[in-house]
């Protein structure tokens, strides 16, 4: 390119370009900038993990060898492959290439790659070692990142699994109470009734009275069992969905509570239960700590489920204060959602949770 002769170029650029020529020339003469800077380019260019094609380009530039090539170790086949993942024989075993043209890059975990290069480069051991080190670093980086991602994913999955299995266990207990203890107690009620009739028929007022007392106790036991079962798991979910469940909860809250819902989407058991616990715990906090005289629950089902519980009370709630809110944060995060508490002193409390809509299963 004839920079100086191109009269369309602005004067200052022309000047800059002319001035640059001797610097590049001097740098390449010294061979300093080229080695260090090109290796630096290689490290910078590859640090985020790059495609194998890009690696080949980077290595060619770093080595200033446009015929250089890379072969990658493939664990599954126990041999080398090219950038397109086609198996290729180890060039050292073919006898056509001498060892001066191949550099093996290794990590403690095993082989990484072979750099096939111009044999003249074998004399530049510092450069070759730098390139190999850069490849090793990048490969380690990618391996660690992958491991971390996998670990993170598995931790997320196991948190969600723990929550789901705790929910399932609660449902199991609730089912056992209903189908076991409660049914048996109702059956006992029938027995007491028969016995009462017999006592009346036999004209035994003392026994009749005893049986009446037993029946009254049984009736109280059934009422308490019902309360207990209700506290264990949101059974009403399976009957009335989150709306019915939220309304029942709102109704039991001593602070007048309005429930608003929008959107009609089938929710997974996990999401339903999480919404239930949010509303239950949120309203418990309203009742215990807020000193509010009005509260609102809103459940909005769209791309995500947004659950908002707000009151006009004293504020000052924090996820660090009391385990209730902390537990909610854990539960919401375990399902991949997020929870925010906004509670300035004297200006009410608003809890907003956003939950991903998991598959209905």
């Amino acid at each position, binding site marked *: 390119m004839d920079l100086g002769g191109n009269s369309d170029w602005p004067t200052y650029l022309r000047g800059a370009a002319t001035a640059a020529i001797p610097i590049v020339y001097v740098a390449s003469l010294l061979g300093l900038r080229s080695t260090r800077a090109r290796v630096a380019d290689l490290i910078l260019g590859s640090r985020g993990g790059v495609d194998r094609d890009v690696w080949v380009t980077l290595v060619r530039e770093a080595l200033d060898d446009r015929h250089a090539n890379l072969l990658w170790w493939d664990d599954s086949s126990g041999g080398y492959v090219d950038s397109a993942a086609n198996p290729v024989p180890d060039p050292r075993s073919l006898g056509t290439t001498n060892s001066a043209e191949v550099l093996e890059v290794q990590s403690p975990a095993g082989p990484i790659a072979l750099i096939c290069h111009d044999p003249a480069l074998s004399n530049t051991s510092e450069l070759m070692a730098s390139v190999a080190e850069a490849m090793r670093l990048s490969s380690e980086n990618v391996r660690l990142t992958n491991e971390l991602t996998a670990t993170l994913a598995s931790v997320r999955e196991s948190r969600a699994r723990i929550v789901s299995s705790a929910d399932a266990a609660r449902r199991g207990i609730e089912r056992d109470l209903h189908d076991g203890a409660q*049914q048996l107690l109702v*059956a006992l009620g*029938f027995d007491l009734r028969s016995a009462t009739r017999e006592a009346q028929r036999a004209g035994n007022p003392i026994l009749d009275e005893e049986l009446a007392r037993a029946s009254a106790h049984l009736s109280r036991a059934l009422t308490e069992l019902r309360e207990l079962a209700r506290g264990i798991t949101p059974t*009403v979910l*399976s009957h*009335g969905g989150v709306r*019915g469940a939220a309304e*029942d909860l709102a109704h039991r809250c*001593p602070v007048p509570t309005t429930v608003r819902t929008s959107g009609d989407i089938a929710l997974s058991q996990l999401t339903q239960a999480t919404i239930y616990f949010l509303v239950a715990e949120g309203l418990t906090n309203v009742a215990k700590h807020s000193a509010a005289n009005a509260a609102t629950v809103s459940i909005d089902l769209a791309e995500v489920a947004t659950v908002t519980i707000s009151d006009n009370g004293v504020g000052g709630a924090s996820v660090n204060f009391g385990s209730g809110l902390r537990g909610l944060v854990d539960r919401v995060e375990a399902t991949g959602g997020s929870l925010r508490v906004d509670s300035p002193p004297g200006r009410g409390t608003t809890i907003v949770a956003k939950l991903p809509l998991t598959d209905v299963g």
Partner: protein
Amino acid sequence: MSIDAPRVIIADDSILIREGIRQVLREGGCEVVAVVGNITELEDALARTAQIDALVLDIRMPPTHTDEGMVMLEKLRASGSQLGVLILSMYSSPSLAIRAMTTGAGTGYLLKDRVTDGNSVVTAIKTVMTGGNVVDQEVVAQLISPTPLNPGIDDLTSRERLILQLMAEGQSNLAIATTLTISTKTVESHVGKIMDKLGIEISSVGHRRVLAVLSHLRSA
């Protein structure tokens, strides 16, 4: 239809409960024409039995043990059936009671432990088979008493509160009059005052009145 000897089908998956209810209903003068343990058996029994007056239906049934009974009730009503249906439930849940009442006239929602009291279950059967409605007193009490949701409730006299409770349980003015041994005119006058104090207008009768009262109490 015989109001003295209602023909009843019992559907409950627990054999102990089924047999207990059968016993109670027989002693109460009902004719138990079929006893079934799941929805499929129930559908068969409904198809092959003539002149059913009422169905006593457990809410939790196989296979999922959640709301099979309620779904069955909704299916029956959707197909135009006016059969009296008494839902038996382990849950003292206003939202479930309202869901049952929404299906229309001739529907009852009782807590399961009431079945050991022969009188109340037979009375409930006779109510639903004649198009009336029944809501368990414990469910209604939950709506009326504990929360300050409806300031109007505080303004009611204890007499008016009792009448509101009975209205929500499904009783007609005549039934309330009989229960409290007062005239229907007095009941009507109380009902008028209750409506004024709560700020609601309920001109309807039957299940619509029950539903209106329950819904008002719950949403207030």
